[in-house]
């Protein structure tokens, strides 16, 4: 499985085979390096260009819509690198330390030395707790999309999509195109927020117009679009049966058996934390993120970031950032690199970043919801802790920092290590403690990044480490 590095130095290690990881790998290979690419999925593409588990008759156009060409190109370009890099799919990098990575693959753990670490770890959905959000039948928007793309199935026979962010409309549109019954799209932002998109027209007219077209097609298909939705409750005894909300002072209710819910995305930053990267609060993402320069260098020499794992910017940015950061790695190694190309990529990334500002204004995060989370609502799913228990812990122990909240309430201590609940816990803590979100800190990451079996066997050192 593992080939031989081209030099005596250990291989560069790329984590993630999505758009950022693929473009980074391509640029390193082009410069004569032989990276090791580790990815949790069985096939490359990341979340956005995730591939089918098995051929099922659907075309790329069916799967990826307007992005089909990009998906096909990425998959093909990565396949073309075969033999020139080492690629470990279905592998979990669960721990990092001092230039060595612990990677679980096929039930055993290998320790791999690396020289140059490029993290392209992507993002997952951000949510805030709602009554009923843990009922079977409620998926994140990303989860609903994976079900469709990867398994070719819908999350219900009458589906409601709820939340904020471009993904809300994209997934609803994809479900509609796939023939699923979409009962409604509930947008947490007022309709007026969408006028911000006009500011995005000069930057990326194609994207804005495509979004408008999707919205129009949803409407033409008779799907109700509701804006300024609040006070949302998901109802059901043992699974989703209905969704209720308030809008313009009026109560609404709709029966459904599947809900896709998400409030934009959050970066997967655990490995950057384990790698020792310095973090700082990022106001646009309302999150504490690893610091990086325009090229993608972190505070730790030899550790690089690209893609949504370092801050949400989308797939097109991820491709450019992956290539850009690979050029930085080459430059740092004293290898030839294309400085003009690097500058061009940075300029494109800056333009996309300006567009992100527009998107954030058009699809704002409903931070104010945190005030209204009922005490009985589950906040931490893994540890089964309610918002009321979290509030009680904050007040009993006088806590105003997120790791202390974890210590006294168990929030973020469970299987997901806070990947699902930490953003909501931070919002709740900031509100209860009367502080800004930027002042409550972030959960320190601990290995294992995801659960590993107690019987995990440690294998001998791999060739890649030689």
């Amino acid at each position, binding site marked *: 499985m593992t080939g031989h590095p081209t030099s005596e130095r250990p291989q560069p290690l790329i984590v993630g085979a999505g758009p950022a990881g693929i473009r980074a790998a391509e640029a390193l290979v082009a410069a004569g390096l032989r990276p090791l690419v580790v990815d949790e999925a069985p096939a490359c593409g990341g979340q956005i260009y995730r591939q089918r588990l098995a051929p099922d008759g659907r075309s790329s156009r069916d799967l990826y819509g307007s992005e089909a060409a990009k998906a096909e190109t990425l998959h093909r370009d990565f396949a073309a690198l075969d033999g020139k890099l080492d690629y470990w799919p279905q592998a979990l990098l669960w721990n990092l330390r001092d230039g060595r990575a612990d990677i679980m693959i096929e039930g055993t753990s290998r320790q791999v030395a690396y020289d140059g670490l490029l993290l392209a770890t992507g993002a997952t959905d951000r949510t805030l707790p709602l009554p009923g959000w843990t009922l079977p039948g409620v998926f994140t928007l990303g989860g609903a999309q994976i079900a469709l793309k990867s398994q070719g199935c819908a999350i219900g026979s009458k589906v409601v999509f709820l939340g904020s962010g471009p993904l809300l409309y994209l997934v609803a549109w994809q479900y509609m195109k796939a023939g699923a019954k979409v009962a409604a799209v509930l947008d947490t932002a007022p309709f007026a927020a969408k006028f911000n998109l006009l500011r995005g027209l000069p930057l990326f007219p194609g994207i804005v117009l495509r979004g408008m077209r999707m919205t129009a097609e949803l409407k033409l298909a008779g799907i109700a679009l509701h804006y300024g939705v609040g006070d949302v409750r998901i109802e059901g005894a043992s699974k989703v049966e209905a969704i209720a909300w308030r809008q313009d002072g009026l109560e609404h209710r709709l029966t459904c058996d599947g809900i896709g819910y998400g409030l934009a995305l959050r970066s997967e930053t655990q490995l950057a934390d384990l790698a020792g990267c310095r973090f700082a609060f990022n106001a646009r993402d309302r999150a504490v993120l690893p610091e990086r320069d325009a090229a993608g260098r972190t505070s730790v020499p030899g550790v690089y970031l690209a893609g949504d794992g370092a801050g949400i910017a989308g797939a097109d940015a991820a491709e450019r950032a992956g290539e850009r950061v690979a050029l930085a790695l080459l430059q740092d190694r004293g290898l030839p690199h294309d400085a003009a190309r690097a500058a061009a990529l940075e300029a494109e990334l800056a333009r996309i970043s300006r567009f992100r500002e527009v998107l954030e204004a058009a699809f704002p995060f409903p931070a104010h919801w945190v005030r209204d989370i009922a005490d009985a609502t589950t906040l931490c799913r893994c540890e089964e802790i309610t918002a009321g228990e979290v509030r009680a812990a904050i007040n009993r122990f006088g806590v105003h920092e997120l790791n202390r909240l974890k210590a006294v309430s168990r929030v973020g201590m469970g299987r997901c290590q806070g990947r699902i609940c930490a953003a909501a816990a931070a919002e709740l803590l900031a509100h209860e403690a009367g502080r800004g979100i930027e002042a409550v800190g972030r959960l320190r990451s601990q290995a294992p990044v995801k659960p590993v079996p107690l*019987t995990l066997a440690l294998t001998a050192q791999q060739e890649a480490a030689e």
Partner: protein
Amino acid sequence: MSRRLEVDVAIIGGGLVGSSAALALRGLGFSVALLDKGFCGAQASGVNYGGVRRQGRPIEQLPLSQRAHAVWPRLRALIGIDGEFLRSGHLKLARDEADMASLEAYAEAVAEQGLDLELIGHNGLRERFGWIGDGIVGASFCPGDGHANPRLVSTGFAAAARRAGVEVLENTAVEGVTRDGGGFALEAAGNLTLRSRFVVNSAGAWAAPFAESFGEPVPLSRIYPSMVVTEPMEPVMSVNIGMEGGGIYARQVERGNIVVGGERALPLNDPDLSRPRGDGAIAIMNNAAALFPGLRHAQAIRFWSGTEGAMPDKNPVIGPSETTHGLIHAFGFTGAGFQIAPGVGEVLAELVRDGETQTPIAAFSIGRFRETSARTDAGSGAGQNQEPQH
């Protein structure tokens, strides 16, 4: 903005020792300031394994340990929460006959100390603790020992101290302590100047510079225990488990997770922080799965470590300074401070009030390092050392 405070007792270090001393002193009517460079209970006191165990301690610690033993069941009355304290019993396993002989010798040596140890043979073990795998020849059981949640207990003592009127100053590193005629002057982060009649040095792994600044150098080093926790499991592990001669230790918490400790972690670039090694964590996990067959299909969901102060003779330093009147030390618990700390807090309060305590602590005197340390003239360093504490 500068701030001045005047109290009877300034306590450096808001771990379990410092915060239980603060609460006890407040109960005796003293005004107290509790200073911590970070958050109270966030270091060793809050991230340790959580064993509440007398069994296995050196015999000289047992009177103090017994005193603490009386505090644990009273936590709810004392700090408002029970801290998930469970008097489950502590079972120490022997892997071979030599280990068993060692357990027997210990049981005999401490027979008069009231631990009520019960030696259990292989068959008895199979009968009563069938969830323990093969390869264990016997054990020693201490029925009155147990375990608790360190995250809650240490933070709970600090919160109770605050409610009782202790001035709890977190994120307030003490940058210098000097002694003058009337008492002590402390300079702390945030332009805080604090005057006190007494100083308690309960700064854990960070305590040595304070002692040294008063002419009492100590061979305090650091250890980094390494912990693994599983996902929640069905209740199976009814007792707190240890092993003679080291190895792993394990307990099942109220929530169902099993906490397994063993091995040692490594410090990060910032030596205040540490993290388990990947291979060390795997060793703990594999050993746990081998010792407890019920864990063979369990998942480990989190590792952690902490920074603890350690002494070469594994006994803490507890007692008055030998150079400086009004200074009292309590640190260096060497990975075994959790159970004993609430008793130490009471003893420290007595030392402040009476200058002495009925609980024997002579073995923990800082003077035991006098001959081995290159000692400067007593007190000459006092008032001079402004070394910052991070």
